[in-house]
């Protein structure tokens, strides 16, 4: 709520006080910005058993990957240089990157699909949505908090993969210089920073998908339906991206640049695709958040 709206609301409240003779008009103005609902939202997400299991699955993959590569190390050496998995393994940071490459295709989209299904459709399904709205929570505010929680969820998911991968990789393969895709070696410290940027880039992509999920979530009262729809959108995007004859469509696909984070591991980094990707993410996030807003603020809550 903007300062002006807040002032208006307070003025209206004051008017109501004189008119009806309230005994319980909220005495103090509410704080302009409060993170209390967002914190409650995050506790709800992180406390849910299913989500905890999901985080375990996200974390397990880089560990399995690191162990598998370690066990087969002698055979892999010197293969295709463009593939993280077959890179020279003197630096453990290839593990989080390979793990992100794998998990960005399915597991991370699945995670955000589940969270976005819970966000509005899940609350509608339980009936808790009507009680939140009559507290009251302004619908725009609720949607903003829900989306903020999805973005945080995306960051948590991606960083679980990156951090667990980095720890496992470093433990098994050490902290030597990293061989970039350009064939040049970069120092470990530089590599860590690029890994952080890569994870943020992945989180941006997953957050954009979260906006799509939030919109779908306002259309149904069945969280599973929203989750499945988001997964179908993701899978179809990947399939279309693989069809060269549909190249004209590719710039419009949410997943088009999701793998471009590997461009951070060139020397120097290749920024163009990364920036294109961030632009697409921002576009998707804005368009679908606004669509969710248009839908949710005019919706009859009959659940």
């Amino acid at each position: 709520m903007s300062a002006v709206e807040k002032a208006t609301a307070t003025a209206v409240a004051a008017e109501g006080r004189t008119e009806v003779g309230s005994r319980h008009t909220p005495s103090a103005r509410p704080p302009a910005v409060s993170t209390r609902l967002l914190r409650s939202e995050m506790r709800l997400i992180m406390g849910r058993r299913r989500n905890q299991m999901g985080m375990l699955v996200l974390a397990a993959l880089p560990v399995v990957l690191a162990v598998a590569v370690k066990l087969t190390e002698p055979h892999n050496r010197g293969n295709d240089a463009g593939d993280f998995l077959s890179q020279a393994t003197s630096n453990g940071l290839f593990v989080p990157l390979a793990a992100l490459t794998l998990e960005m295709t399915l597991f991370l989209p699945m995670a955000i699909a589940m969270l976005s299904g819970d966000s509005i459709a899940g609350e509608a399904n339980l009936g808790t949505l009507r009680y939140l709205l009559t507290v009251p929570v302004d619908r725009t505010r609720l949607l903003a908090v829900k989306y903020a929680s999805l973005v945080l969820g995306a960051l948590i998911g991606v960083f679980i993969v990156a951090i667990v991968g980095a720890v496992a990789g470093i433990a098994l393969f050490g902290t030597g210089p990293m061989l970039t895709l350009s064939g040049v070696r970069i120092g470990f410290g530089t590599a860590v920073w690029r890994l952080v940027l890569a994870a943020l880039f992945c989180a941006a992509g997953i957050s954009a998908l979260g906006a799509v999920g939030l919109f779908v979530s306002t259309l149904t009262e069945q969280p599973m339906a929203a989750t499945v729809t988001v997964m179908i959108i993701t899978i179809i995007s990947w399939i279309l991206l693989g069809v060269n004859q549909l190249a004209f469509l590719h710039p419009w696909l949410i997943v088009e640049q999701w793998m471009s984070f590997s461009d951070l591991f060139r020397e120097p980094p290749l920024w163009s695709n990364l920036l294109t990707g961030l632009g697409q993410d921002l576009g998707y996030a804005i368009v679908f958040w606004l669509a969710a807003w248009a839908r949710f603020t005019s919706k009859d809550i009959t659940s």
Partner: protein
Amino acid sequence: MTGAALAVATSGLTKRFGSRAAVDGIDLAVPTGAVYGFLGPNGSGKTTTIRMLLGLIEPTAGTRALLGQPMPGGASAALPRVGSLVEGPAFHPYLSGRANLARLDAADRYADTRTVRTRVDGALERVGLLAAAGKKYRAYSLGMRQRLAIAASLLMPRDLLVLDEPTNGLDPQGTREVRSLVGSLAADGATVLVSSHLLSEVEQVCTHLGVMSEGHLVAQGTVAEIRSGAVATVRVQTSQLDSAATVLAGLGVSEVRRVGHEVHGVPGDLDPERIVAALVGAGVGVRGFVVDAPTLEDLFVSMTGEGFDVSG
């Protein structure tokens, strides 16, 4: 009654789902300080009305105001002062009762974080749920869930409570407790709108009644006003039907008619004693004399119909 004295006021409030009008042009008037019993059979439009009042659904036509604030525009000013229970309890199953209330409290921008624990436990105490506060909601019985929903409406001090079927799923003991809770809330000065499909559950605590039937508000007013709408009839048992009928008509009794060995009529303001005296004075042998005053329940049934059919 002026608009300012009404805690809840609607004008021509209508909601159509497709071609069917779930609520059809109702003018609700709940005076400040009243305990308003919102009655009607299942499916008569009570919950739809309540959803419109709280801004959950938009009416097809008409206006509504809560505590003097037009809805939905005044929601941010009015709703913090309104506690509500809409269409049964709804909570997160894997959270405890206490955690569920804390969650709702976190959503309230006016709630003071320093007093969460006190207010949550106070509300749980008030509905007798404190002992089960740490249990997961999924383990609650229907009655406990209903109590938790009522507790949620009491987290903050309220000027208006909108309780939709608060006694649903409660045993007779629980029903009595809810009734006394409603009474104590009203004694504290809150206005209470309590809906029910059972007159007997709310009759004792209500000062005002509104009766819904098939989307229409068929009666509204103080309990005394509604009761006065009940038309008493007199029944005279006699063998001299013609003379009795003449005497009754002469006294100004309306709708005089013969039914078997009785003469029936509507006495209006006439004292029954005068009717008997007049009959005896005219030499009519009175074998029996009965004044039938319908109970509130009879009235309710006559307004809404009886039986198990829900209105579609």
